[in-house]
């Protein structure tokens, strides 16, 4: 039994560790580092009762609940800064851990299989599911390590109200969320045939889990239990420390893991459970135009991202209805805040939501450009450049496509958010204002496609820097105020230079500068791309 299925799991394990060690290191280091860094600021935040009370009211706001998960009892907030930390860090760190697992698993399962590596391994005296098994051991190890690093890292800070039991629970629930999504990706890897589809389907499941949890947390709690992320945010860590979600997530992981092994044992190498249909014998008219070709190659990605942005924005808009009744419910606020102040706070949330959705929408904009790198590495570009197709034309089409994607994402954002608002608000923002608020970010998004083009054209190995810069933008937007970051540090993020409509007036000058910088990046990218050797 062992020989037939598991033989040489250990050897494959060491092989995979060698392949993945740097990626693992960067992920673990980044996730742990940010959490410990942010945690270290907490003793100096929320020092007095007044600030804790004010912040706790923010956390009870439906928009915040939709974004970050359910809040705590007011007493818990007053007792220690721990609950604030959990609110602000837990869910997004869990999502980062989930993404880490999704990428690692899809790369070392279908990625290796597509490249033919699984075939040479499987032709040896190796158990039928040894490879999948080794991947499972790796992600298990990685997530345990993540749990320990975060648990110990934050524990060592000795912050009031964040004792060892709580920090270890915080770490554990993060690791287990990662594991659930890793195991789920492992199942998906058995069902679909390409690494790219595995990543995409898994990310879709992640987004869907987030969405179900958001709706559930705000309105129907039972719905949240249907989402793994719903369990993630229900530990009451740093207050009541409930370990039940950890157990539930463990059971879910074991279930997905066994299912993946079972499905792998039954299928053929190189195939999935969905068999391909017979295709066209001739290319369609669209496919024969350069732009149409690139659009076609990325259509599934683009459609999936558009849908995701639309649905997320719609649900955020929908939550704004609860926001309005929330203000009315709280007499305290009624008394303290003038009506126009209420309106301003609502608008502040609107700008925050639009900004965060834009950040998410920037991912496909940069990805559209970086798709070209993948095409080059896989040797597809040789087909093009050995024909009468110039490098500049191909790159220009990619730039065009990424600008098209940016328009698409912001339109999906505006339409989604506005239609969500309209359904529940008595006096929603006009559609035009919403559209403006979304479109004002376009130059910033183009800057990202500019940076992607430049890095790709100049030195393709450095393209991950785009994601670093985007993460930085997210970090500044999300925690810049809280951590009281100096202005110059914040100003490094391009998103800080964009007017927050409807709170601020549009300023043309900064936008023009951003467009010019983006354009310069494009120019550099084109210049270098014409001069360098291609890989394949």
């Amino acid at each position, binding site marked *: 039994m062992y020989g037939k299925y598991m033989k040489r799991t250990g050897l494959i394990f060491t092989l995979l560790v060698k392949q993945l060690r740097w990626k693992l290191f960067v992920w673990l280091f980044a996730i742990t580092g940010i959490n410990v860094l942010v945690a270290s600021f907490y003793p100096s935040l929320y020092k007095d009762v007044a600030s804790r009370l004010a912040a706790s009211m923010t956390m009870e706001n439906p928009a915040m609940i939709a974004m970050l998960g359910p809040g705590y009892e007011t007493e818990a907030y007053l007792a220690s800064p721990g609950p604030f930390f959990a609110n602000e860090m837990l869910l997004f760190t869990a999502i980062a851990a989930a993404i880490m697992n999704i990428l690692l698993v899809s790369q070392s399962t279908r990625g290796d299989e*597509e490249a033919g590596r699984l075939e040479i391994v499987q032709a040896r005296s190796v158990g039928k599911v040894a490879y999948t098994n080794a991947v499972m051991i790796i992600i298990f190890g990685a997530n345990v390590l993540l749990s320990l690093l975060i648990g110990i890292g934050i524990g060592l800070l000795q912050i009031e109200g964040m004792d060892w039991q709580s920090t270890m629970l915080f770490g554990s629930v993060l690791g287990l969320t990662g594991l659930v999504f890793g195991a789920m990706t492992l199942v998906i890897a058995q069902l679909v*045939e*390409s690494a790219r589809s595995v990543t995409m389907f898994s990310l879709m499941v992640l987004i869907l889990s987030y969405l179900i949890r958001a709706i559930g947390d705000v309105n129907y709690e039972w719905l949240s239990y249907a989402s793994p992320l719903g369990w993630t945010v229900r530990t009451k860590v740093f207050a009541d420390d409930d370990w039940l979600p950890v157990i539930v997530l463990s059971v879910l992981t074991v279930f997905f893991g066994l299912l993946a092994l079972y499905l792998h044992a039954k299928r053929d190498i190189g195939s999935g459970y969905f068999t*391909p249909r*017979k*295709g*066209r*014998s*001739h*290319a*369609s008219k669209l*496919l*024969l135009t350069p732009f149409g*070709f690139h659009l076609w*190659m990325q259509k599934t990605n683009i459609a999936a991202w558009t849908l995701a942005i639309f649905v997320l924005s719609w649900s955020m808009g929908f939550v704004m209805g609860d926001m309005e009744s929330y203000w009315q419910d709280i007499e305290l606020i009624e008394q303290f805040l003038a009506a126009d102040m209420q309106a301003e706070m609502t608008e502040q949330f609107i700008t925050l939501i639009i900004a965060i959705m834009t950040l998410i929408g920037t991912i496909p904009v940069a990805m559209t450009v970086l798709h070209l790198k993948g095409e080059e590495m*896989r*040797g*597809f570009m*040789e*087909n*093009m*450049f*050995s*024909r*009468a*197709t*110039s490098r500049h034309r191909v790159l220009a089409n990619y730039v065009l496509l990424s600008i098209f994607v940016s328009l698409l994402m912001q339109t999906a954002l505006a339409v989604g958010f506005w239609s969500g608002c309209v359904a529940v608000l008595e006096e929603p923002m006009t559609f035009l204002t919403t559209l403006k608020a979304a479109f004002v970010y376009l130059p910033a998004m183009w800057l990202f496609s500019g940076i992607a083009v430049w890095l790709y054209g100049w030195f393709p190995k450095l393209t991950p820097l785009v994601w670093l810069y985007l993460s930085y933008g997210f970090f500044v937007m999300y925690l810049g105020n809280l951590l009281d970051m100096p202005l110059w540090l914040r100003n490094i993020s391009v998103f800080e230079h964009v007017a927050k409509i409807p709170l601020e007036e549009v300023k043309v000058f900064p936008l023009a500068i951003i467009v010019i910088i983006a354009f310069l990046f494009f120019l550099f990218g084109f210049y270098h791309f014409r*001069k*360098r*050797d*291609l890989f*394949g």
Partner: protein
Amino acid sequence: MSILVVEHLTKKFGSFTALDGVNMELKEGEVYGFIGPNGAGKSTTIRILLGIIKATSGSAKIFGKDVWKDAVEIHKRVAYVPGDVHLWPNLTGGEVIDILLKMNGKYDKKKRDRFIELFDFDPTKKCRAYSKGNRQKVALIAAFASDADLFIFDEPTTGLDPLMETYFRQSVLEAKQEGKTVLFSSHILSEVEKLCDRVGIIRQGKIIETGSLDELRYITRSNFTVKTRETLSGLDELEGVYHIEEKDGEYSFQVDSEKIDAVIRHISQFGVVKLESSPPTLEDLFLRHYERVGKQEAGDA
């Protein structure tokens, strides 16, 4: 008229010199065989010719134009088949063929269908499902169906079965008859021998021999198998005879081309029962060259 002229072409990858002063010339309408062992620099040369990578120094011109600067212009009249064909996994073979052909402008749909039929190719499957041979067929069909004046093949038949290989040779000869020029890289020597007018042999980034097959045969040997009534003697004393082996009274050996006459005269004295001779294969030529170089290098040291 020269279609392709390469002079002192050098390519360095960091400190490694992949090509070291390569010279090459292709005349209009000729089939040029480019042979050498793995890693000799065949593909690097071809990739420079296609403007995919840039030469460190030296010049390479196709149709009188610079291969790097005027790549797009040149490629309108060039068809290329790589050794390792990578295709978009989510498109069908038929779609890829159309797209590749369209990249060079207008194309002849009938010609496309004729070659699909000739190579017995199913264009409706997704590329991820094709075997190596079938992926090669995609590139071959897209090449032969295009209206090119120069064909560049980089080890194009490694995945094809013998029947398909025959069709491939047939298509190359057809193109030659139409006056097209062909550059053909390979390490399968019999293939080059059947197709090529002239060959260039590359080793460690340098062209070590170049010329027509006849010219190169001059420096090599023919293989002989002889059986005589009387015991054959004195063979090893003759000049230009090598690798003599005897088995059951049958002798086999190699003879320098210019010494054949003397050897025939000698063996005819013993009453020939059986005489077989075979022309040198490129394999012999190859081995012979390396033997010679090896000896020279040993001598130098």
